[in-house]
């Protein structure tokens, strides 16, 4: 059975995290939107740096166009994406 002190620390940490919320996470990531140059010559694509669902991320991330990638290069979503990996068949069963 876990020590009571550990449970208390976990409760406090959860309470603190609930109070801080997503704003602190965004702050810790820097600016709301940054651009990088991916390898394989793809055009720079903004990467969201705040949590999914916010207005800022919705505005910053354009639809991924598979045609921007060369035939033999990993796509942006394959390199960086999470959900998109499902569609690529790389994730899961």
């Amino acid at each position, binding site marked *: *059975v*876990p*020590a*009571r002190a*550990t*449970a*208390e*620390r*976990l*409760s406090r*940490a*959860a*309470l*603190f*995290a*609930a109070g*801080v919320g*997503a704003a*602190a*996470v965004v702050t*810790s*990531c820097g600016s709301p939107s940054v651009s990088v140059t991916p390898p394989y010559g793809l055009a720079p694509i903004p990467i*969201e740096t705040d*949590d*999914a669902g916010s207005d800022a*991320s919705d505005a910053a991330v354009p639809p991924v166009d598979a045609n921007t990638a060369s035939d033999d290069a990993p796509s942006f979503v394959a390199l*960086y*994406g*999470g*959900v998109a*990996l*499902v569609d690529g068949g790389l*994730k*899961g*069963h």
Partner: protein
Amino acid sequence: LNGTRWRLDRAAEKLNLRAELPGARLFDLAADALRTARAAGASRGDRLALALPASWCVNSPAPSTVLRRWALAPQREVWELLMEVFDESGGASLDADSRRAVMSAIAVLGPEPYGVEAISKVLALLAPDAVPLMPSPARTFVLGESQAQTPDAFVAMLEWFSATVGEVRLELTACARGHTQVPLSAAQVLDRLLWFDSEGYRHFPSFGV
């Protein structure tokens, strides 16, 4: 199950079929590697960083933005303390204080509809003797349709898992020893059989259930 008993049968067959699935096999190997890393003294933060992407191997619904949120303060501290709770419990039933603390942590880490499932798929790597995989079919199989979707489902699954492993530990251990494709503990055998009977059998139409 509506109160009926769940019969654990054809375990070796089911475990072997599961090991054929590439994602599932990688997940089991990652869990074993994380067990080794823990024994070698790897920090909770390092093990968490490895477990987050590995959870995708069994179709975690959490996107990378959520995994990143979990890897950063303040939620990273919540994860590490969750790991500490399960490290200390060693798969035993949690006391009331710990259950409340775990429920608070789950609520903070996983407010999304898929939160319980995604969190379980990380913790099943980090604390495999205490936390089963909790996709919706598994929760429904164990808890029933109505309770499977409640905030209490995570802790209810933990309690069922701990009690059931204790009830049939000898049989599960024998299954684990007989399964040579990937290393599994007794608790992991129960979890994999739960997955197979609640959902996984659909991958194998010729199995016949």
